[in-house]
């Protein structure tokens, strides 16, 4: 819920040009990050990609720090050097995100290797989109992780499109998770818009990893409600969003947040009023974070060479 409201709060400032850093909004896919991170401990590691606002928040990263990073301020989680695509909060196990497609998959394998060598019981998670299944490094990573029985979960968020390319133009019609099979890695398809199913699947996978059962590959079926980058590729003048309206509507009907709300109400775990008050709280938290971001100073030009050691 925080993720959705925050992402949607970015729409105005992106369109007005107040936010310049390219933002790949996570709206629609929230249940994956939220359900997954609920199954992890603070000490477990995650790596994200270009679309990682949700991963960062779900892992417990500070909303204020992320907002400030998106506004490219000195107070941001990456001190204004990284912007939307480079989010990190090592203290909560969010080791980083980066937009080179599949670039962080092997890094997550490395974090799992560290956990194995130390024997500290941590689990590493690599979040990537189905587009990343085009890159060879995924397959090298799968093999090495399987070979060494590393405690890693490959989390493929299949939202059916990689920028302007529908998945059917990128690969033959086979579930992506099947690629793990070739390496003897257990793999499951998960309804990515249902946070409870996501949680269950991830809890099992995490248990498997902690019990030295080796890697797991999870493919989450989901959909992004916004354009590839920014609110809407078409409104932004790029005219590259070729997704049919009906498809979007079908997925809007499966909105992960609405789904959870109706579950909570049906089972009388929360009533409308309680949900409303959560929404208000979240709204307040977000407007505070954005205020904080906007009033924070930008990095000083004379500090351009900070954090470079060679």
């Amino acid at each position, binding site marked *: 819920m925080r993720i959705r409201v925050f992402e949607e709060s970015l729409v105005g400032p992106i369109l007005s040009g107040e936010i310049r850093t390219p933002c790949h909004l996570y709206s629609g896919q929230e249940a994956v990050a939220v359900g997954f991170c609920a199954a992890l401990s603070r000490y477990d590691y995650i790596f994200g990609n270009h679309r990682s606002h949700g991963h960062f928040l779900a892992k417990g990263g500070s909303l204020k720090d992320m907002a400030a990073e998106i506004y*490219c301020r000195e107070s941001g989680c990456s001190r*204004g050097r990284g912007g939307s695509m480079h989010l990190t909060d090592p203290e909560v196990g969010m080791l980083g995100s980066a*937009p080179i497609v599949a670039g962080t998959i092997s890094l997550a394998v490395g974090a799992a290797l560290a956990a194995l060598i130390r024997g500290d019981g941590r689990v590493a998670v690599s979040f990537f989109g189905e587009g990343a299944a085009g890159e060879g490094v995924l397959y090298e990573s799968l093999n090495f992780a399987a070979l060494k029985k590393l405690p890693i979960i490959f989390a493929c968020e299949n939202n059916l499109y990689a920028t302007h390319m529908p998945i059917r133009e990128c690969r033959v019609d086979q579930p992506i998770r099947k690629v793990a099979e070739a390496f003897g890695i257990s793999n499951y398809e998960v309804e990515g818009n249902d946070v409870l199913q996501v949680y269950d699947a991830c809890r099992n996978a995490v248990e498997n990893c902690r019990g030295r059962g080796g890697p797991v590959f999870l493919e989450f079926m989901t959909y992004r409600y916004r354009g590839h980058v920014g609110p809407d590729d078409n409104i932004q003048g790029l005219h590259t969003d070729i997704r049919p309206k009906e498809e979007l509507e079908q997925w809007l009907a499966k909105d992960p947040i609405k789904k959870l709300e109706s579950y909570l109400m049906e089972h009388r775990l929360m009533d409308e009023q309680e949900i409303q008050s959560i929404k208000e709280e979240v709204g307040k938290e977000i407007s505070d974070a954005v205020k904080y971001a906007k009033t924070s100073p*930008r990095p000083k030009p004379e500090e351009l060479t900070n954090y470079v050691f060679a």
Partner: protein
Amino acid sequence: MSSPRKLSYSLAINEALCQMMELDPDVFLIGQGVKSPWYVGNTARGLLERFGESRVIDTPVSENGITGAAVGSAIAGMKPVLVHPRMDFMLYAMDPIINEAANWFYMNGGRTSVPIVFWGIINRGGEQAAQHSQALHAMFAHIPGLKVVMPSTPYDAKGLMVAAIRDDNPVVYIDDRWLYSFEDHVPEEIYEVPIGKATMRSRGSDVTVVASSYMAYLSEKAASTMAEKGVYAEVIDLRTIKPLDQELVLASVKKTGRLVVADGGWKSFGIAAEVEALVSEGAFSCMKSSPVRVALPDVPAPASTSLENAYYPTENDIINAVLHVI
């Protein structure tokens, strides 16, 4: 040569591709985003409609494999133009570019050449940060077996693309999105800008400014600003980074005795350093002052606008460098 027709830089590339594909059925375009202006601007406009999906191939996100496949097709006699819509993505493809394509002709005793164009686009600014901003031309120029061209004008954009496609060996063609909207005269017919030949953008006797790509544009601007104040700079646009046009650079420096090199890559171990080395080896005794490099500081590209503004060299940086050497 000049024709009254004006064309933008990006449409000049488009025209080169279109005409060369028309002329030679072995030429084809492959790479990520050739269907999408988000990736390649309007450089590929109309090509898919005209030549079909077998010769205009949009690809999965698989830089290494696709680049290798393009190289292989060139070894088999095709003439691929392989586009990487951001140079940053090319790093996944370094093996087929360097280990295979660049070395192939030599290590096979000159029996098979690899007639391929590796086209990499610099796409920087806009708070995109370190992985979506890099200008990596110096890395390629370091490699024996690769020619590297960096057009700065629409005329050169077309002429160098034609020359690169016609070349029998791998050519790395690097352009900069910041140049895409620039318009200038571009002849309608097919013509080549020879690879390995620099050109003089303005004449002067006070100082030589050597630059390429967007920095050549800034240097020319700086030269006209300075001319108003009575300082005359000779601006040499390299056009080709490798092989470097040593003759033109040395001839100019021998005349002016002063040198500024402006490059859009990092300062250390880059093109600017190479040009200075050339001059100190070939015209040392003519130098009246130490040369100065205008280049990116040795820092990854930052996100925040406040840092981007300090990061990318400007016309003023070139003017200040010139004032420093004269």
